């Protein structure tokens, strides 16, 4: 029996507004408990919600970025249930009529490109946090997070493997950061995914019973959790059992999913339109302004990098994974004015390695794009070799100045004068008669050793191509040998 996996993802992206979706309290992460909860967030008697324009604008931006329909009128609805981290006893969300309807995302896996359909995206408020440890049989409630704006993004069950699910999550994560609506910080809970997973016999068009795996906060855990769950469901069915629709949590330590302890039968949330909030009306002018202010999206930029800079697809994809990276790259190319591929290599290579090692964001790179361009220019015009350039880069990173200053102060200019190199080669040949003899006896490696000696004698500054050529020529002049 061949099985097909069916996955849909629900993602909660915390919107990057300064204040909450229905109150003016701050949304900044990490404040002391209950210091960022206003009267409205505490649900005191008599308080009322007022929508945050910035949250709505971010929803519009998302809708436009995924080619969805922006509903000109949408409705806030109350989702009623009791829990201490939900002060009103209901969450303000959207139910029948969300702000964003439809849309698509394109993912790339080993199988190639695929389009994943989105069902919808809607605005809602986050609940507070319940802290069960540290309180000796009690639970601590921190309402700082209560009222933070969320965009809940729902995909159709179009994903067919854990790879596709992770690819989708990564593209979505990259997109929400790209368009500036969410910081995507998964450790802080800004981007949370739930996976709905079911299996069915391959060829069937009937959906199997699904289980929801909640709160997957890393791509690795998402991959592992889905794979476990798929195996679990298949084994269960093959053993004659049936999959029970339930909510499960992933335990990374034991690499398994388990039913959530406190879940009862499906809750009736008694959704109804919130009478405190008039319908959300979004006019054409607002949508057009957001559209006009939209940055070039990753897919379009990736295509442009291929067409305009002649970059291979892998480079274009890597450079457009991150908006600041892409703009750094473009600034480097612009300033350098030469072959974009060398800029691409340096940005993806030395620069990215240094940033990762120092755990520094590209926005705070000690080496600016113009300075990197300056370095690349000095390789291209022959002033220094690629090898020396690496040392210059390290010096730039350490704050010693720009490329020219370092090359000058350290005297790193490549020696390209034939006469000067020729003289040094003569000295090396004279000092290494034994190695010369080995070379003339047929040992190729001896040539490399002579090259090495020459480079060492010039402290690496000799132009390697010229060293090669001159050494070859002089050896040939000396008499018989392999050349």
């Amino acid at each position, binding site marked *: 029996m061949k099985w097909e996996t069916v996955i849909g993802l629900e993602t909660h992206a915390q919107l990057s507004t300064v204040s909450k979706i229905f109150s003016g309290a701050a949304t900044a992460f990490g404040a002391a408990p209950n210091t960022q909860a206003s009267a409205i967030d505490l649900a005191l*008697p008599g308080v*009322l919600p007022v929508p945050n324009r910035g949250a709505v604008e971010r929803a519009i931006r998302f809708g436009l970025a995924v080619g969805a329909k922006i509903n000109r009128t949408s409705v806030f609805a109350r989702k009623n249930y009791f829990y*201490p981290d939900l002060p009103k*006893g209901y969450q303000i969300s959207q139910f029948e009529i969300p702000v964003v309807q439809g849309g698509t995302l394109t993912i790339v896996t080993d199988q190639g490109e695929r389009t994943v359909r989105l069902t919808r995206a809607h605005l809602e408020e986050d609940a507070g946090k319940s802290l069960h440890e540290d309180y000796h049989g009690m639970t601590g*409630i921190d309402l700082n997070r209560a009222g933070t704006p969320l965009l809940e993004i729902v995909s159709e069950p179009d994903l067919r493997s854990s790879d596709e699910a992770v690819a989708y999550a990564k593209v979505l994560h990259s997109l929400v950061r790209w368009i500036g609506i969410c910081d995507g910080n998964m450790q802080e809970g800004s981007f949370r995914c739930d996976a709905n997973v079911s299996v069915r016999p391959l060829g069937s068009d009937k959906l199997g019973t699904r289980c929801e795996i909640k709160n997957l906060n890393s791509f690795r855990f998402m991959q592992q959790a889905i794979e476990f769950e798929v195996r679990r469901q298949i084994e269960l069915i093959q053993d004659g059992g049936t999959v029970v629709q339930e909510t499960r949590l992933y335990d990374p330590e034991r690499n398994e999913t388990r039913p959530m302890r406190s879940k009862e039968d499906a809750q009736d949330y008694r959704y109804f339109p919130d*009478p*405190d909030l008039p319908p959300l009306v979004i006019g054409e002018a607002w949508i057009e302004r957001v559209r006009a202010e939209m940055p070039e999206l990753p897919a379009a930029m990736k295509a442009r990098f291929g067409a305009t800079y002649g970059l291979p697809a892998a480079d274009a994809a890597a450079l457009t994974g991150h908006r600041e990276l892409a703009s750094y790259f473009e600034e480097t190319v612009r300033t350098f004015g030469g072959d974009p591929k060398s800029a691409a290599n340096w940005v993806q290579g030395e620069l990215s390695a240094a940033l990762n090692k120092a755990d520094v964001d590209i926005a705070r790179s000690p080496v600016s794009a113009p300075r990197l361009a300056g370095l690349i220019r000095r390789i291209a015009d022959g002033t220094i070799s690629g090898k020396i350039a690496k040392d210059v880069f390290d010096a730039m990173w350490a704050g010693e100045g720009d490329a020219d200053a370092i090359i000058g102060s350290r005297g790193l200019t490549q020696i390209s004068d034939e006469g000067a190199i020729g003289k040094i080669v003569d000295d090396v040949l004279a000092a290494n008669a034994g190695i010369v003899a080995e070379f003339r006896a047929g040992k190729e490696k001896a040539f490399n050793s002579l090259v090495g000696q020459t480079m060492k004698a010039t402290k690496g500054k000799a132009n390697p191509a010229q060293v090669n050529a001159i050494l070859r020529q002089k050896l040939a002049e000396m008499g018989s040998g392999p050349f």
Partner: protein
Amino acid sequence: MLSASIAELARLLAGRSVSSVELTTGLLDRIARINPALNAFVTLDAERALAAARAADARRASGDAGPLVGIPIAHKDVLMTAGLRTTCGSRMLADFIAPYDAHVVTGLKQAGTVLVGKTNMDEFAMGSSTETSHFGPARNPWDVRCVPGGSSGGSAAAVAARLVAGATGTDTGGSIRQPASFSGITGLKPTYGICSRYGLVAFASSLDQAGAFAQTAEDCALLLNAMAGHDPRDATSLERPREDYTRLIAAGRAAPDATQPLAGLRIGLPREYFGGGNDPDVDAALAGAIDEFRTLGAATVDIALPNVNLAIPVYYVIAPAEASSNLSRFDGVRYGHRAAKYGDLADMYKKSRAEGFGAEVKRRILIGTYVLSHGYYDAYYLKAQQVRRLIADDFRRAYERCDVIMGPTAPSTAFRIGAKTGDPVQMYLNDIYTVAANLTGAPAMSIPCGFDRNGLPIGLQIQGNYFAEAAMVNVAHRFQQATDWHRRVPPGVTT
């Protein structure tokens, strides 16, 4: 003098015949003597009142001649008043000190009123008699064996007994107008959205509106002037240019000798309001009042509101539904009553709410939860909202043929305490004439128009189209110029 209207008191204060401190002191004494029999007040704060009175006198001395400066008032205990206990008539909030002022409270404070105390009410505004209050029923000054009406019964009793010159109320299904009718005073509910609901503890969000009680329509308009206005903290608060709701009364003063001051006014009389089922004394008083309006020059028009008989069932689906959700925040977690002994979380919720809420509140939460629940939402809540639109359409069509609509405020006069508590539906039927204005959001008021055979007051309801408060108030004012029902005081209350 203590029993003078707000307009009269404003003249006396402006002429320095009396100071706010004297006025407030006098009323506090009267309250100390009379309130125990009426239980109109839940909280009194003499110190705060006298401090406000002193400040008001200073303000007058420095030239501020606003009509409300120094006028003693009371707030219904459903409105948040910073630093003062705000109970909503419930054990759930019996010790709750409000941390902020409601928008309408701020408006009246800025206008210079002197807050004397918080008035008794049906618990969480759910009721038509003020009998569901955790603090005991309020009593009707006309007959202390009777209810003053509800849910704003304490405010109505306080004004009727001349304990304050004016008081705020809130009206969700008639909770200002019906107590005004039972207590022989004037009560006004503005168009939905005119007064901010920020700080008005929510019962039914799409129906609640704050309004005013006073001796006259003019006084109510003066209070409304200070209460109305856009509030960015309430998303349902309307942004409209400021209005002076007394402007048509003032304009009318310019032509005092007009014999037919209401010539041209078309009064719609819905056949559904006079179809039998009213107390005969109510029908008689209404007939007399309509005749008086004709004398003033108005014409009457028979109108039909075919769906208005559905207003009660519609209201008693929508209001409890919204209430069931609005009251979920009272869970014992962050404020309010929490049970002293409980096991786990669910137990804490159950016990705190079982102990904190009275029977009527529980009844309405159950009804509201039911009509919103899966499988019933379409048949009840959705259907009720659809019929609500039909009722609004009836009124819209009626206003093509008339300017105001009149009828009895309630089918009866004040009943005995305990007479209707055995049958909730009987109690609900008190609201048959008032709920429609909440469902449609249109403004409405009640003015005294007579007494029944037992000397209990009868109220005439005037309904206007959206934003017609100034016109409505002027129509009422003209009636009050020509009659003196509104000047009568209960026995035992000296003028």
